[in-house]
């Protein structure tokens, strides 16, 4: 199965080719469903001037937040960055640029990027700062703004299971942005909890078909929880 075996055995191999100035599309929502080991590898590589596209930017010492320590991120496109004091400081200091994007628009921009749709109209953000500089068009009398798609040199995602062909299945709400991110990278790398043989995943239950995935690596995950809330 040489042709479609996407499994790599080291993080170096998983992120090979990443270079300064690249755009990385990252799956995850908060700290849930994030490719922990791939992020650590990017930190180890010390790649700089990155543009990161992700719903959030992690926290100070976990998730994408660790790429702030050495100022590896030049710009972030995200919907919410409120959990990160270092980010706040770098933003105020002008070290980092942020493009705040509504969450649904961000998800759709990633999907559109993977789907060959360069732009779409949405009512989201019309009449707000998000609409500044964007084309407005009316459909059925309601104004919508034009949003453009996003792609990147790399996409990094976290899945529950992958088969060797790169077919992915996500677990519970750790799915979040991962399926769209997976479609939007020129090179898409999936870090997973378990690698299985082709045929072990039911074809109709695959969330991300392997055609979108270039590399698969077995990870081990801390799975930190931001807000543990319980009932009696």
């Amino acid at each position, binding site marked *: 199965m040489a042709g479609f075996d996407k499994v790599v055995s080291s993080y170096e191999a998983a992120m090979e080719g990443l270079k300064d100035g690249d755009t990385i599309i990252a799956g995850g*929502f908060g700290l*849930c469903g994030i490719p922990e080991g791939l992020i650590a590898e990017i930190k180890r590589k010390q790649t700089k001037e990155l543009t990161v596209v992700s719903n959030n930017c992690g926290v100070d010492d976990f998730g994408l937040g660790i790429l702030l320590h050495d100022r590896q991120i030049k710009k972030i496109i995200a919907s919410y960055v409120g959990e990160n004091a270092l980010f706040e400081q770098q933003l105020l200091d002008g070290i980092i640029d942020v493009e705040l994007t509504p969450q649904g628009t961000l998800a759709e921009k990633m999907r559109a990027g993977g789907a060959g749709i360069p732009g779409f109209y949405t009512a989201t953000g019309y*009449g707000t700062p998000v609409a500044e500089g964007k084309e407005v068009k009316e459909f059925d009398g309601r104004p919508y703004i034009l949003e453009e798609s996003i792609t990147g040199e790399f996409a990094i995602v976290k899945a529950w299971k992958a088969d060797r062909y790169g077919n992915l299945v996500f677990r519970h709400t750790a799915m979040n942005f991962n399926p769209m991110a997976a479609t939007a990278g020129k090179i898409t790398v999936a870090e997973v909890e378990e690698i299985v043989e082709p045929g072990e995943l039911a074809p109709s239950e695959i969330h991300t078909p392997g055609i979108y995935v270039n590399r698969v690596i077995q990870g081990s995950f801390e799975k930190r929880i931001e807000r543990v809330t319980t009932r009696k």
Partner: protein
Amino acid sequence: MALNREQIAMRVAQELQDGYYVNLGIGIPTLVANYVPQGIEVMLQSENGLLGMGPYPTEDQVDADMINAGKETVTAATGAAIFNSAESFAMIRGGHVDLTVLGAFEVDQNGNIASWMIPKKLIKGMGGAMDLVAGAQNIVVTMTHASKHGDSKLLESCTLPLTGVNCVKKIVTDLAVLEVKDGAFHLLERAPGVSVDEIISKTAGKLIVDGDVPEMQFAS
């Protein structure tokens, strides 16, 4: 007397109807789930990708892979569906969610809402709020009627950066229930013991008071 947070949530819960799919924002809106009227079933949508949000887990049930849009650990209710964030916002943007309840800094008489950004202070981001207000057919805003300093939050025109335009239909504050239509706030109900005069004095935007204004009713 002004309502407390729980009472505001109780009043908002009266807006629920049987079979409603509902998205509840962070803060007071979250509390609404505790006051679903008897005999009514609603299903909670969490915009990270969960339809049918259940209660918080017991300690044994805590699972890092099962969180809500507030990044809290939750459970899935019986009959829940889990999907990706593009699908989640497809259902929000496409108007499939029956009711959205969210907080705000300001609302104005044209139904504009400002809820996500205070310039000069830190910008945390809008998260899913702009999608929710653009997509929902039915938006209820919860907030205190005025700031601690007594400044009205119901304005002629919002002063803060907007979250959405012409979208807010109903407001439940600690003092009143108001409908927004035809460029004005319409006073529908007042909190028990709160006078119409107080509401008038704390509403900066155009306020229509038509006849007697009943007090809110709470099931005992």
